[in-house]
Every structure is written in structure tokens, then in C-alpha cells.
């Protein structure tokens, strides 16, 4: 089979799936070795780059997903008649951070760190598809645990949680300029 054709098979699968597709699945469905997949994906990306396409392949954990470049967002919003989403509040960012670095976590864990009730914020982050439920913890009360979503990775340009910014040094003294978000 031609290399071009293999690339296009990957493209077809990614396009049709919409959701992120794991490397194993791409390998199985296209009849290609798993090791070859990243190379083919790279060539697909290059192809989009060369033709100045609006599409990109993004990597999320062990999966690939087809998406549009962010510079086309306004045109797409016009067409889909969706509003630009309001920027995240600093409170929302705090909650996301706590979940991202400690997941799965419960609401009360979040509240303990922030020192304020955070229920409303957690719910609105779930609505925004940035957080999701991750089952219940096996502790008394069986509280619901939360984790970040693939959409969270996409929105923060991360390909996996390992990509999260390294936490600042614990020993440093805080200064207010730094902590005002």
C-alpha cells in the first residue's frame, strides 16, 4: 500500500470518529503497526501544514483527534451561531487547578484547599465540559470524585496531564503580585 494511502486512512478514521482515537485502535483499524502510527500522523500534520489547511491533528494522552486551528474560531462561531465563551474566572481556574493536579478529587477536598464553598463552580465547570464525574470514592459517604476531561486538555493546549506546568516551589514566600490572577 502507498504511504499516501495509509495517511489518508488515518485521516478518514480520525475524521469519522470525531472523538479522540487511541493509537491501538488506529493501528487495528488501518492494519498498520502501532509504532508506525505516530509517523503517519506526523505526515498528515505536515500535509495540513503545507496546504495551509484549517485542520490540525492534536494529541491527547494516547489518542489523536482532528480539530480546527484556533485562528478560525471566530468564523466557526459565526457559522454555528455560538457565542464566544466568557474567560474563566480566577475561582474557576483555582478549582480546575486543584482537580488537575490531584485527580480524582471530591468537592470537599477542593473546598478544604480553597476555604470556600465551591459547589457552584464545580457544577459550572461540568457544564463547560472541563470536569466530569469519576465515580464514587470508596470511603464513608461514598462521595463523588471529579476529574478533568479531554476537552480540558484541548482548552489548555495539553496533550496529557504530564504536560501540566510544573508546580512552583513550596518553600518560596508568597508575594501578592504573584498570587493575584
Amino acid at each position, binding site marked *: 500500500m502507498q504511504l499516501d494511502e495509509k495517511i489518508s486512512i488515518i485521516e478518514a478514521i480520525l475524521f469519522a470518529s470525531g472523538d479522540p482515537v487511541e493509537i491501538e485502535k488506529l493501528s487495528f483499524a488501518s492494519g498498520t503497526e502501532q509504532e508506525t502510527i505516530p509517523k503517519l500522523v506526523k505526515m498528515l500534520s505536515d500535509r495540513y501544514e503545507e496546504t495551509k489547511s484549517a485542520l490540525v491533528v492534536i494529541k491527547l494522552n494516547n489518542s489523536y483527534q482532528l480539530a480546527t486551528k484556533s485562528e478560525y474560531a471566530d468564523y466557526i462561531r459565526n457559522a454555528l451561531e455560538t457565542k464566544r465563551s466568557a474567560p474563566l474566572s480566577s475561582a474557576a*481556574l483555582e478549582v480546575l487547578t486543584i482537580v488537575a493536579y490531584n485527580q480524582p478529587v471530591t468537592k470537599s477536598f477542593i473546598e478544604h484547599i480553597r476555604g*470556600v464553598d465551591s459547589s457552584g463552580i464545580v457544577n459550572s465547570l461540568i457544564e463547560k465540559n472541563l470536569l466530569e464525574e469519576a465515580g464514587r470514592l470508596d470511603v464513608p459517604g461514598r462521595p463523588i470524585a471529579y476529574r478533568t476531561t479531554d476537552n480540558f486538555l484541548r482548552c489548555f493546549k495539553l496533550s496529557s496531564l504530564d504536560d501540566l506546568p510544573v508546580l*512552583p516551589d513550596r518553600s518560596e*514566600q*508568597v508575594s501578592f503580585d504573584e*498570587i493575584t490572577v
Partner: protein
Amino acid sequence: MAELSFKLEKFEGPLDLLLYLISKHKLNINDIPIVSLLEQYMEYIDQMAEQDMEIAGEFLEMAARLIYIKTVSLLPSPEEAERLKKELEGRLVEYSLCKKAAALLGERYNGGSIFVRSPLKIEIDNTYRLVHDKNILLETYKNANLKYSWKNETTVSSFESIVSKKVVSVASKILYVLKKLYTFGTVKLDGIFEDMAGRSERVATFLAILELTKSGRILISDDNSEISFCGPLREKRHVLAEV
């Protein structure tokens, strides 16, 4: 004054306010001088009250906690105070880390400007086709049953030791008294115990009033019949209460 109120509203919670005070007065977060931090904190709370801002329960709880740490530190053996102080410092360090990390993360946010597709809808035969050994079912059943019997053993008696002995903390009653005062301005002393059933609750409330008096937050009237706030709040609340 308008500028000040804007400033007050922007605090996410008591920890946020404390971090602000620590940074503003260049205090060492790893060894907080509780007394001066408490003073500054109460100043802000008073300002909020003066501007008739609704003071969230969390802010009052933190006030109670700080007062408690201060009071305990006056006791002959300061270990408890040291432990509570370390705990608070730990939370503050953790929260400040969280804020820093949130700022770092925020820089990466692209506001949902990347679009993806919804999956293609095609007719799909979902029939499961993998083949398993039937003994998997046996293993699974054993485990599922285990869970069930474990649940079964959780009876009322498992909780008895937790439920039967109700200890009321002084800190919670400091909060209770402060809340009453913020609402009514002046409170009759015998009225405050009226709805209390347990001995532990009464004792804790009594101790709370003593602590608050000792730290100069509240004043007991000359005939020992009612309590009110010390300082500027007092007059204002009196007026409000009479209206």
C-alpha cells in the same frame, strides 16, 4: 470608601484575604504572628460589616479559628496552639501554591477556540463477539457477593460510637455567638442558652463568650445580663437593633 469595598469583594474567601494580609504586611508565611494577623483580619471583617456587606460564613469561621488559636496560645502549654498554627500555615502555603499554579494554567487557556467534530453516524452492529472462559463469571460472582455481604454488615451499631458522644467545639460556638451579634447587635445572655439541649453545647457556648470577652471582641454589660460588640460597631448595631 467605594474603592475599599471593591477591594473587599474581590477576595475569594478567608484564605485569600489572609494571603493578601500576609503579603501586604510582609509577614513570614511559615511563622505567622497570629496576634497581628488576627487584628488585621478583624479590621477587614469590621469594614465589611460597616459597609453592610453580607459576611459569608467562611469569613466568620476563620475569625473564630484565629481567635481560638490566639486564646489557646495564652495557655501554659502552647503545644496545641503551635499545632493549630502549623495547620493554618500549611493550608495557606498550599492555597498560595494553588493560586500560582492556577495563574500558570490560565496563561495556557485558549477559551475553547479549537473545534472538533461530532462522530459520523453510521449503522453499526454492536453485538459483542469476543469469547471468554465461563469461569470468569464464577470469579466475578464471588467478588460481587463479597461486596454485598460487606454492605450487610454495616449496621447501626457500627456508627454508635461516633454518634452517641456529641462534642461541641468552642470554635463553632464562637462563630455562633458572632453571628448572633452581627444579626441582633445586642444579645441577652440567658437568651443565648435557651434552645440548647446538651451540656456540651452549653459549656462550649459559655467558653466561647469567655474567649471573646478575653480577646476584647465583645463586652458583657455591667449587670451581666447582655453582650455586645466592642468598638465602633456597637453604636451602629444598637441603632439598627432599635429600628
